[in-house]
């Protein structure tokens, strides 16, 4: 490497890292998928009530909200950042949709769009704080989490907003385009496909990985890293906004006090799915599987009537196992 400039070195490193990331990502996906299958088999054998159509639909439905949050989180985490505000931005979006639809009596579709835009606006603000003001993502999104949490309560007057006058709103999540399967599941899976295409086939996706692998090299090679970071955080906000609509639709109400702690479930799903918290590696399929593992685990443990305090302990251990397996494989290289 004698004689090469720092820039060239870094770009070479970026490429090497990227290749490694792609390889281990695939393995992690297989491992995560295998654990999911094992969990399903174990629970099916333990209880005859687990592998039943209604329960499987229930599992998918309970994955939808956290799953959509996790899809959005995947992008920022791959850039090496973090978004702690996804849960409360979700709540903020649902409250905004409630305000637009129920207080201002603007049409339902515009309310839905408005709610999602509110999420995008929060993401945009976080992005500006991170990229322009150079506030560390952890701090910027922590602040955003508090701001949206408070604003949701202020705007709603600490009261839930009900959508009873708009029966079509509940159909967004609970209507059934395909008999037996609530729309929320289809929306979650559809968004998964879209997110996967964005991450693997578009410029946004390519820069998401590049930022996480080596931000400085990416910047030096002429990429406007500030702009792309803002784009990525805004996109995460859009996903939170959609999750907000899904949640409000399922509960037929915008609950201003919900949402705290959801960001941690989302991050756990992303990490179990093999996305590295240090950035540069990860996949959408992994995140979807990670989210499913979380909900299969909680559902199965509930069906077996495991004491709730132990359920939490077990989920904690699963996260350690998943991440440690990932680290072991990386070390082998």
């Amino acid at each position: 490497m004698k004689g090469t400039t720092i820039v060239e070195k870094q770009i070479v490193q970026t490429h090497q890292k990227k290749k490694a990331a792609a390889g281990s990502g695939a393995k992690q996906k297989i491992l995560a998928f295998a654990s999911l299958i094992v969990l399903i088999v174990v629970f099916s054998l333990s209880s005859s009530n687990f592998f039943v159509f209604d329960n499987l639909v229930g599992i998918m439905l309970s994955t939808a909200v956290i799953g959509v949050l996790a899809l959005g989180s995947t992008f920022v985490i791959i850039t090496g950042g973090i978004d702690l505000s996804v849960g409360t931005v979700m709540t903020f979006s649902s409250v905004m949709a409630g305000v637009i639809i129920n207080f201002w009596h603007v049409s339902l579709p515009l309310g839905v769009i408005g709610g999602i835009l509110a999420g995008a606006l929060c993401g945009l603000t976080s992005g500006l704080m991170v990229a322009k003001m150079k506030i560390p993502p952890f701090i910027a999104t922590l602040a955003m989490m508090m701001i949206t949490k408070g604003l949701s309560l202020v705007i709603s007057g600490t009261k839930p907003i009900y959508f009873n006058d708009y029966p079509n709103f509940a159909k967004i999540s609970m209507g059934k385009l395909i008999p037996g399967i609530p729309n929320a599941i289809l929306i979650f899976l559809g968004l998964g496909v879209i997110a996967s295409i964005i991450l693997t086939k578009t410029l946004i996706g390519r820069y998401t990985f590049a930022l996480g692998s080596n931000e400085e090299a990416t910047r030096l090679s002429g990429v406007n890293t500030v702009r792309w970071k803002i784009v990525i955080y805004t996109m995460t906000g859009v996903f939170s906004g959609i999750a907000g609509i899904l949640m409000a639709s399922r509960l037929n109400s915008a609950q201003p006090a919900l949402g705290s702690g959801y960001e941690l479930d989302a991050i756990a799903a992303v990490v179990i799915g093999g996305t590295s918290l240090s950035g540069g590696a990860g996949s959408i399929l992994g995140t979807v599987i990670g989210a499913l593992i979380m909900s299969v685990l909680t559902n199965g443990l509930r069906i077996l009537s495991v004491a709730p305090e132990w359920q939490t302990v077990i989920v904690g251990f699963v996260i350690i196992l998943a991440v440690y397996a990932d680290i072991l494989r990386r070390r082998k290289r």
Partner: protein
Amino acid sequence: MKRKQWFILLAMMLSLTTVLGACSSGDKGDGKTYIPVISKGFQHQFWQAVKSGAEKAAKEFDVNITFEGPETESQVDKQIEMLQTALDKKPSAIAFAALDSKAALPLLEKAKANNIPVIGFDSGVDSDIPVATAATDNVKAAALAADKMAEIIGGSGEVALIVHDQTSRTGIDRRDGFKNQIESKYPDIKIVDIQYGGGDQLKSTDLAKAIMQAHPNLKGFFGANEGSAIGVVNAVNELKKNGQITIIGYDSGKQQTDAVRSGTMAGAITQDPIGIGYWSVKAAVMAIKGEAVDKNIDTGFHWYDKNNIDSDEIKPLLYD
């Protein structure tokens, strides 16, 4: 340039604090009696109803109150801080709904030493410091829910519970009140599962669905607070088991009263949240004046269902 940015930042912070200062109402200063009311929360509709009761009493007796509480019922530490701050303001009396009465004991003793009367509300404090406690007897109320459950499902079958948490006083009292009544009076009814959803509607919905999957013969479901009860209603609706499972709830709120009206929920226990708030302040005023106050003010509870939901007795107790 650098200095200019500093000035802008400083100016922004100054203006922010001024605006916030102007927004907050003065606690004191007009010479009126000041009674801080420290509740267990402020976000739930239940606490908003308690607050309106407290404000009603404040108006009636011409005293100043502040009403605050932590975000969730597990934040014992935050509540203790609020109690500490309230005591530092040297109030005339204090109304306090303890999340953990033992944790608050040192501060309550300090209040007693400073001759500040303490009124407990919502749940009792395990000490003789409070001059009075305005609360619902949650054990008895949950036992009534158990009796109603037994009556409706015909004295036998499987039932399950979703409770908000297993550490708070109300959670424990309602769970045990229901459980002990069933176990001692109705041997043919079996409690198959008790789970905790933190009062989170979404989580309680998924929990209730899992329980219904695990116990296909379930005949009855008790949700021990508003969020838990609505979770059960959602679950029954989603699994289309309306009419097959008897749901009994707790407190009110629009979704719960709607479910009672539509028949999805058989009925629910309502406390008197406005009465709890009203009595906490009224008892404080009486204590300040040195009047005799009942040690235990039972604010009561009632069963409501489709038939009496709009009656004069029940209607004022329900909140939306």
